[in-house]
């Protein structure tokens, strides 16, 4: 399982990468592995404004559905249209081709509740022991 160090992680198993005030968000390798074959992805509309903690979409496998939450507030400026036709991209490349949304950050946000790759790896190993 991969936990790249150039992204940050949430307790709900999203990853986030912030560059030039734009956040790219997807779900982690651990999350896609837990879900299994992903067959459908629901994404927000471009232009939608999201508050921190809002559900921005959902990911469905054969067996179950999971909401995805944004750890930052801002405006959706792009969604990954590839996922409409090829939702399995999330299984194959969760941190690359499988990204879900890009959000333009609102100013002056606290980003202190995100985890580093090491912290997240510890977090999921504790979760999977339960």
């Amino acid at each position, binding site marked *: 399982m991969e936990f790249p160090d150039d992204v940050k992680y949430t307790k709900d198993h999203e990853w986030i990468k912030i560059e030039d005030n734009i956040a790219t968000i997807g779900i982690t390798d651990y999350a896609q592995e837990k879900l*299994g*074959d992903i*067959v*459908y992805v*629901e994404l927000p509309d471009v232009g939608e404004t999201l508050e921190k903690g809002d559900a921005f979409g*959902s990911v*469905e*496998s*054969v*067996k179950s*559905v999971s909401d995805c939450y944004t750890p930052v507030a801002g405006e959706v400026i792009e969604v990954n249209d590839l996922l409409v036709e090829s939702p399995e991209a999330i299984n194959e490349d969760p941190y690359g081709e499988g990204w879900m949304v890009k959000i333009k950050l609102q100013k002056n946000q606290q980003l202190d509740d995100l985890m580093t790759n090491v912290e997240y790896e510890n977090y999921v190993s504790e979760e999977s022991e339960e």
Partner: protein
Amino acid sequence: MKRTALYDEHIKLGARMVDFAGWEMPVQYSGVIDEHRKVRESAGIFDVSHMGTFEIKGKDALKFLNYLLPTNIESIDDMKAHYSMLLTEKGTIIDDIIVYRLAGDHFLMVVNAGNREKDETWIRKNIGNYDAEFTNISSNIVLMAIQGPLAARILGRLTDTDLSMIPRFGIGRVRIGSSKEMFIARTGYTGEDGFEIFSPISEAKHVWTSILSEGARDGLVPAGLGARDTLRLEMKYPLYGHEISEETNPIEAGLKWVVDFRKGEDFIGKGALSKVLEEGTKRRLVGFRMIESGIPRQNYKIKRDGLEIGFVTSGTFSPSLNIPIGIGYVRTEFSEIGTKFSIDIRGKERQAEVIKTPFYQNRR
């Protein structure tokens, strides 16, 4: 949690284990979609030994089962199996089962994992003065299912028995590899050809590993409960706790054919079901496909013009058809093929349409 005799094999194969009705069972090995497609194209092997197996024999066994079940047991030949149900006096469904007639007065019954205790209690309660002996032999039997268009070819290479002599729903006695003799039945829950194997515990690992290694060159894979569910859903086979329960009767579930109203004997639930038949049912179980995006799931509401007209009992993305499909109860007037309604998918109404079932038809 309880484990089957094949637990170690599942772990060795890298299965993901989940709790199913108190049993630690493999939900998937390579992935649900892959396993599903392999069963449709080649073959898969399933551990289904969480299900219960009962033995009923004795002078009155036939008479008793004819009272207990809505099926005409007399019409089942020796060494043949039949789909049937345990019904309440109200005509609702305690469980769906397969009954196997080994000989005149000797029967087996396979029941759902989650209903094993309830079914045993019900059968013991009703056996009353019938001269019949009931034994729960679940803990001696490891049930496996080999399913798929190549199932007979693969199993045929492992046994001296001519499998072509066992018709659909027929029962045979075979040795598999170097195993002792055991019963198999040409039955299943996938819509494909295949066999369910009643292995003694001592032989189970040998049977499982022999089939896996013999089947590998034909593309046979181990398949978990995830694929078992999507396979049965494509056939619109009911699953207890979803399509059928003690709140539903066989008529509205589209399973009237299971109930033989013309057999001579009285049976549990007959009176209530005759009345249901006379009055008609208010709702019907239908199969539908999504026209708009989204995947229907159990208990999502079915609506038309803003009014609730039913609910989803099962839904999934169909790996064979590549579209989301579902099963649900709707008011009878909305059950015709071609009827459109919407599914309330977590707050969003998405269009769906009643279509002909089974959703999937194999090439045979």
